[in-house]
């Protein structure tokens, strides 16, 4: 390079400072944090064990029934059954169930954490103007960057995989909860206030129900992002289909990578359909023109 960028600050010492700081956190809080997250780890393992324990046909029937309940379409339900059957046939049932467990738990936690954050954001413009750029950064930051701090804190394993997945997948549910509540017809919120609703009553009797279709769209996107994170999360010990893909790369086995990839695609289609049809039915129930 003929003319390198001038060294304005000493980046080496800055980086050392950041790394040392983080190391300090790891050294002092690593263990308590690990203990704090133990219940979540147990929940994840229990879910996975349960799914593995269930006979394959029970899972297949249950998911197909769920698809039917959400979509009221035999075709869509049959599609779910066929795709799950193929997953079994090509021998990736077990990793697929591990992936489903990770996806379900991380989505659940993302929703439980994300909706209250979205609600808070919708109530204050200051909160929104702080949170939006943070969410932007969360969504544009390369996924791998999340892995580093979590692995350092917990070591490779399911907990860092779960946490990284949650951080990666949570922005849509926060964003769309905020958006949904802000777009609730102002006259309706005004009306419930005029009848003497407390802020809490206003939230639960008007704002959340009316924002529900939008919130559901957020949950759907969060589900899909959690699923897309599994390949990367497998690099730090998440297991499941992602690990199969990783092995395919390491061993240069095209078939292994292809089958696992197919499994991920099928799972994505199944859960996307369930969530979308459910959202659509809810919209009809709300009698809101879409």
């Amino acid at each position, binding site marked *: 390079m003929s003319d390198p960028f001038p060294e304005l600050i000493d980046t080496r010492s800055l980086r050392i400072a950041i790394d040392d700081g983080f190391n300090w956190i790891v050294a002092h809080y690593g263990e308590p944090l690990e203990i704090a997250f133990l219940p979540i780890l147990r929940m994840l393992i229990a879910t996975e064990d349960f799914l593995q324990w269930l006979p394959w046909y029970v899972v297949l029937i249950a998911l197909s029934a769920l698809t039917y309940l959400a979509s009221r379409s035999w075709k869509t339900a049959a599609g779910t059954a066929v795709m799950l059957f193929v997953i079994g046939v090509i021998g990736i049932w077990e990793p697929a169930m591990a992936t489903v467990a990770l996806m379900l738990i991380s989505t659940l936690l993302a929703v439980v954490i994300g909706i209250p954050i979205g609600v808070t954001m919708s109530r204050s413009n200051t909160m929104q103007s702080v949170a939006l750029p943070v969410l932007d950064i969360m969504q544009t930051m390369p996924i791998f960057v999340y892995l580093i701090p979590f692995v350092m804190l917990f070591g490779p394993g399911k907990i860092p995989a779960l946490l990284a997945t949650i951080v990666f997948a949570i922005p849509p549910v926060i964003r769309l909860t905020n958006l949904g509540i802000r777009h609730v017809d102002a006259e309706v919120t005004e009306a419930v206030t005029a*009848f003497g609703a407390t802020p809490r009553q206003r939230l639960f009797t*008007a704002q959340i129900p009316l924002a529900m279709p939008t919130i559901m769209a957020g949950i759907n996107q969060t589900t899909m992002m959690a699923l897309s994170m599994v390949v990367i999360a497998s690099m730090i010990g998440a297991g499941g289909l992602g690990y199969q893909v990783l092995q395919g790369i390491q061993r240069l086995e095209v078939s292994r990578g292809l089958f696992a990839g197919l499994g991920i695609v099928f799972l994505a289609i199944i859960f996307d359909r369930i969530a979308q049809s459910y959202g659509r039915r809810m919209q009809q129930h*709300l009698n809101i023109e879409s």
Partner: protein
Amino acid sequence: MANGETKIAVRNIYKVFGPDPRAVMDQVRAGVSKTELLEKTGHVIGIRDVSLDIKAGETFVVMGLSGSGKSTLIRHFNRLIEPTAGQILVDGSDVLELSAGALRDFRRHKVSMVFQRFALLPHKTVLENVIYGLAIGGTGKAQARDKGMEQIELVGLAGFENQYPKQLSGGMQQRVGLARALATESEILLMDEAFSALDPLIRNDMQDQLKDLQARLHKTIVFITHDLDEALRLGDHIAILKDGELRQVGTGPEILLDPADDYVDRFVRDVNRARVVTVGSIAQPVSSIAAGEASVETLRPLLEESAAVVLMEEGRPRFVITREMAADGRLGGLLDNTVTLPGVVCVDELAMLEESFPSLTGSNDAIVVTKADSIPVGVVARKTILNAMIRHRA
């Protein structure tokens, strides 16, 4: 509180929208124009120095063009909007001093509201919508249901209680809105362009229904509209707003017959007065006396206090003697020779001018305005009726 007493008193309220309304209040008080203030400071004047008295049991209409501040004004009454300056007294107590809890109680029990675009909860049934105010106020389920069903029947929606709002037509949805407002049994009903989103025919129905309900319930209604016909049909008093300022308050006929300024005049110009002005509102008061007791002595003092005297026979108006006819000592002569007196046609005081037309034609009988069929309350000259139908200012 008895009818006729002041229910809502508005005292010099100002509402300025913008980043720092208090900072520009001096300019607003000094009379800066709405556009100038907006250009110079980015503040919008919603309401400027409005004072009003709204009486218990009346329907008070606020009228004005789009952006004149009607919605802003009505939202002060239940404090959905707080004024930048001024006071709002309901039953004599200052609404602005209510604590958060007291304000909620006030909204749950004292004042309810009907909205232009209905503002129903789409995920709740008609019944659930109607009892919304009761439910959040903690009324028991069974009791709320009973009250709700009563209101649903009152507005003519029995049988639809388990439907969802979007399954109903606009007119029916607004009936739900009305029932929801009535269900809390509040004394004050705020209606912000409640019928503006409806078709003309449905709108007429709703106006009739509201008049019916009001005749039974005697609420204090504040009704907002930009439609003069609606205002004249419903309003006991009408206030006209322009750019946040009050231009005139009065009864419908007062505003039609004596517009306070050019703006009001232009507003009321196209109204068919014959259809909205009552004969009673333009009549001159009269005294009455039984024809048998009429003499120069008995009539003279009566003619001094009113412009005309109606002579009654068998409880019905028979002759009219006006001050002019009795001038120059002609009174005695008139009484001696009553056959020369003109006869009488009676018109009810509540009749519209239009309905009095038949009595205008072809005779020179005096027109006596009566109530309860035969009690004379006034007389009206043909010329007065014709004048009333013509605009005062060109």
